[in-house]
């Protein structure tokens, strides 16, 4: 690290720190749409940021554009009449400030004011700003601003604006704000919307895509360059999007950080004096062996050179109480960088900054380009993927959202859902199965436990911790079927494909944006095969990097790469709220006896009796049995399924049913009896509503029940015995 000391002209000195390593990122975008040159200063006492930027905006379409649209996201927190809060009434998100005592009423609300907006070298347009409401009739909502231009922007023309703004941060409600001396500044400046040309994301004609801020929705923005100088008190630790070009101490006790990043569509930052800063390098050649490189290159079908990753400078800003999670955070981030990189293409940026959020802050677990927020607990459980799950997920958004820039307002499932799928694949590859429960003395308990509890020095001198870990053991949950519970509870609330604010409620938004999509992609993977699916995902990712895809673009890639028409699949699983449920209704097996009953023999009626026929069967050395297996479709989803029938002596027969009609029956005449049958034995239909009815044995079998009975009866007795404590 090179340090240069300047002596100021007057009294103070300024300290400028050149960055440890040079910026190596080369832009992949021919013509950036936005270029922000910004200066912003945080006043932690007032919870305000005052800022100025010049914005160069390029009209990439053939249209002539008469006005500009801006997001003023912070105004969602201005009052209870904002669409954000009105959406949320009766649902989840009302500020719980009432419960949280600290801070005055005034300091809790947030807003952003555009103090001045002017064409560079031209007219002052401040007086022409109006609030508009493209999504609802809420005149009180101020989260979208329209600027009428004196002169329209010609096709492929450029406009340059100069903007002064003041942002007041709210007590954190969702994704941004402050708690005490901790600040998370996201969606904090007036941000221009996305102008979509005809044909983009299925649009018939060009227009602005600039939605209001809703309780459930996230964001959408165009790619470009952020060149930002952030100023905060010198004792604050600051992390932000992008590469740090310089750091300069100012005479007034503040420090200015110069951040720069190309090819990103947002800029967020955090500041807190208590952050512990840890920096490590993701050295990709150490993390990825040559064998792994070859293996995955062939798996996703690309030349080895294209499979190579790059080194990344990772900065973790961790809360003092979470320092013990540092290694786990880094391991999770490195696993993310490795597998996302190998599967979808290298993480292209030089830096990744990760902010660990304090307890009680609603800013956790968010994604911004090259900057994410994560969270952990004081003593995270040994077997649960916490903080790994959230860390890999938020990192994964660098690929699904930051690099492939879908519209989170309209198609949240394209990043949240794809990321749920990818994250679970990384977790199972890097860590194995998750534990949704852990066993303590044989009893399964939810896995958010603190293990190996560190003790204070006194009075436990010499005993550093209670090693309770070994008494816990994992109850494994396969990643491919996790999230089923939340999906099944809300399976019929909505079709999967909806605008973010049009779902029944926040829970349905969550289900349909995250877990259900993950399960759907797993089901697609089962249909296509793992390798084809990997190639689909890679092709889709590479094709849409630094661009804005929509669902149809993904479906097109699926059909193209797989060489199949999978539209039936998407119609079934994305555009309806039907559930899949296949079941084995019946398994029977009967001896095939000789003649029993009245038969015409030589023109005369002759009765063949039952008993002798049975006796003859017993004696026979060539016994034959008639077996039947009835499979039924109880759900509305039509999907092809496998049926596996087990016979005596280890013989199995596999059937393939198109799953169209309500039922199918398979019959067999064989020397062996059918023992059991199973529909969808590989659990390909990850969305299946009820796995417990997927198999059936011909004869009931109480052995498992006996095992469970003996194991549980003792703990039940113990429980009742302990309940006697209160008598």
């Amino acid at each position, binding site marked *: 690290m090179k340090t240069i000391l300047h002596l100021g002209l007057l009294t103070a000195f300024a300290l400028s720190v050149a960055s440890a390593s040079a910026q190596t990122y080369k832009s992949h975008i021919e013509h950036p749409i936005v270029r922000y040159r910004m200066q912003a200063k945080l006043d932690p006492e007032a919870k305000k940021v005052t800022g100025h930027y010049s914005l160069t905006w390029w009209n990439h379409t053939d249209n002539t554009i008469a006005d500009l649209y801006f997001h003023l996201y912070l105004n969602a927190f201005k009052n209870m009449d904002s669409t954000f809060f009105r959406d949320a009434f009766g649902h989840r998100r009302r500020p719980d400030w009432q*419960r*949280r*005592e*600290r*801070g005055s009423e005034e300091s809790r609300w947030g807003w952003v004011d555009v103090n001045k907006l002017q064409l560079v070298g031209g007219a002052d347009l401040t007086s022409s700003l109006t609030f508009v409401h493209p999504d609802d009739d809420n005149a009180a909502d101020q989260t979208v601003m329209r600027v009428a231009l004196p002169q329209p922007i010609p096709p492929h023309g450029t406009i340059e604006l100069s903007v002064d703004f003041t942002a007041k941060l709210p007590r954190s409600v969702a994704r941004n704000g402050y*708690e*005490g*001396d*901790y600040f998370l500044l996201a969606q904090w400046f007036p941000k221009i919307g996305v102008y979509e040309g005809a044909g983009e994301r299925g649009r018939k004609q060009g227009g602005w895509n600039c939605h209001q801020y809703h309780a459930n929705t996230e964001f959408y923005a165009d790619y470009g360059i952020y060149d930002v100088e952030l100023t905060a008190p010198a004792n604050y630790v600051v992390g932000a999007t992008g590469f740090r070009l310089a750091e300069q101490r100012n005479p007034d006790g503040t420090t200015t950080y110069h951040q720069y990043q190309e090819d990103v569509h947002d800029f967020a930052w955090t500041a807190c004096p*208590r952050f512990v800063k840890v920096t490590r390098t993701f050295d990709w050649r150490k993390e990825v062996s040559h064998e792994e490189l070859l293996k995955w290159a062939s798996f996703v079908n690309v030349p080895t050179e294209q499979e190579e990753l790059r080194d990344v400078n990772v900065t973790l800003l961790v*809360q*003092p*109480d*979470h320092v013990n999670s540092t290694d786990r955070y880094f391991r999770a981030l490195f696993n993310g960088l490795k597998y996302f990189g190998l599967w979808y293409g290298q993480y292209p940026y030089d830096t990744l900054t990760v902010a660990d959020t*304090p*307890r*009680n*802050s609603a800013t956790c677990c968010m994604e911004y380009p090259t900057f994410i927020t994560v969270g952990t*607990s*004081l003593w995270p459980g040994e077997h649960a993927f916490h903080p790994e799950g959230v860390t890999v997920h938020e990192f994964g958004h660098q690929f699904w959202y930051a690099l492939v820039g879908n519209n989170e307002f309209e198609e949240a499932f394209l990043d949240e859902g794809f990321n749920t799928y990818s994250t679970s694949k990384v977790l199972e590859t890097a860590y194995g199965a998750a534990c949704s429960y852990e066993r303590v*003395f044989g009893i399964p308990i939810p896995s958010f436990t603190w293990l190996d509890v560190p003790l204070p020095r006194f009075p436990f001198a010499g005993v550093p911790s209670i090693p309770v870990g070994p008494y816990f053991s994992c109850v494994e949950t396969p990643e491919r079927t996790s999230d089923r519970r939340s999906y099944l509870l809300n399976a019929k609330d909505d079709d999967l494909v909806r605008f973010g604010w049009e779902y029944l409620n926040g829970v349905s938004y969550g289900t349909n944006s995250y877990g259900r999509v993950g399960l759907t992609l797993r089901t697609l993977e089962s249909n296509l095969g793992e390798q084809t699916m990997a190639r689909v995902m890679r092709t889709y990712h590479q094709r849409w990097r630094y661009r804005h895809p929509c669902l149809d673009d993904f479906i097109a890639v699926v059909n193209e790469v797989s060489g199949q028409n999978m539209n039936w699949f998407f119609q079934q699983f994305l555009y309806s709220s039907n559930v899949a449920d296949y079941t084995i209704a019946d398994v029977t097996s009967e001896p095939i006896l000789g003649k029993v009953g009245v038969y015409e023999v030589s023109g005369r009626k002759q009765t063949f009796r039952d008993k002798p026929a049975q006796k003859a069967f017993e004696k026979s050395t060539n016994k034959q049995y008639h077996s039947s297996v009835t499979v039924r479709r109880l759900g509305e989803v039509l999907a092809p399924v496998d049926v596996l029938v087990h016979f005596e002596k280890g013989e199995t027969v596999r059937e393939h049913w198109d799953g169209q009609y309500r039922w199918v029956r398979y019959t067999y005449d064989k020397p062996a009896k059918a023992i059991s049958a199973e529909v969808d034995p590989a659990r390909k239909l990850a969305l299946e509503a009820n796995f417990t009815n997927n198999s059936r044995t011909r004869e009931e079998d109480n*052995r498992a029940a*006996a*095992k469970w009975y*003996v*194991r549980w*009866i*003792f703990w039940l*007795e*113990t429980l009742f*015995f302990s309940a*006697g*404590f*209160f*008598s």
Partner: protein
Amino acid sequence: MRGSRGDAARRPYEAERAHFRDPDLPQGPFAFFRDAGRYAWRMVRLMIIGLICYWLVFLVLNQGFARLTRRWTVAALDDRPVFWINLGIGLVTVVGLLFVNLVMDYARVNLVREEETSAVLAFLSSLGFSLSRLRKALAVYAIPSLLGVGLLVVYRLVVPWSFVNESLGSAGWSHLREPLVLALLFFGQQAIMLGRYWFRVAAWASEWSYCGGAN
């Protein structure tokens, strides 16, 4: 440990005495149920007092303290102090519950031993007794109880769990080993339960004996 002064004072009522108090009297199911019925309603009244006490412990120590500390910790940015405060509340609540349990134990002993018909008086006298000799009363109460809990630890440590899990964990079923392991496990567990009940009775017997000696 019979024949204390307390017994002597009650000699005139000998005819009415519960048979289980005197091994010389005829024992049997009839005597047992008659004696049990004799104390039943007092015990129920005592149990209601006990439940009210437990409820107060939960209300005051657990909920009350939690509500109080929530106000200080709700805006805390650090996890550690919040954890220790919550752990403290948990421990105070457990201590409160154990104390009520101790008092109720001695109240039950008192109720039978002194032929006390008023549950309230039995409770109050036990409360006074427990508070005035807290340490000894606690030791008499705790030692057999902890031995009972110790049986659980023995169960956990002595049973060859890897063998059991291996035998029962497989999807298959051998005709001898699995039923045998199941049966052994079942009877072993019942023996542990029996032991726990035995230590519970031993705890009461110790308390009975200690009450007699202390009077």
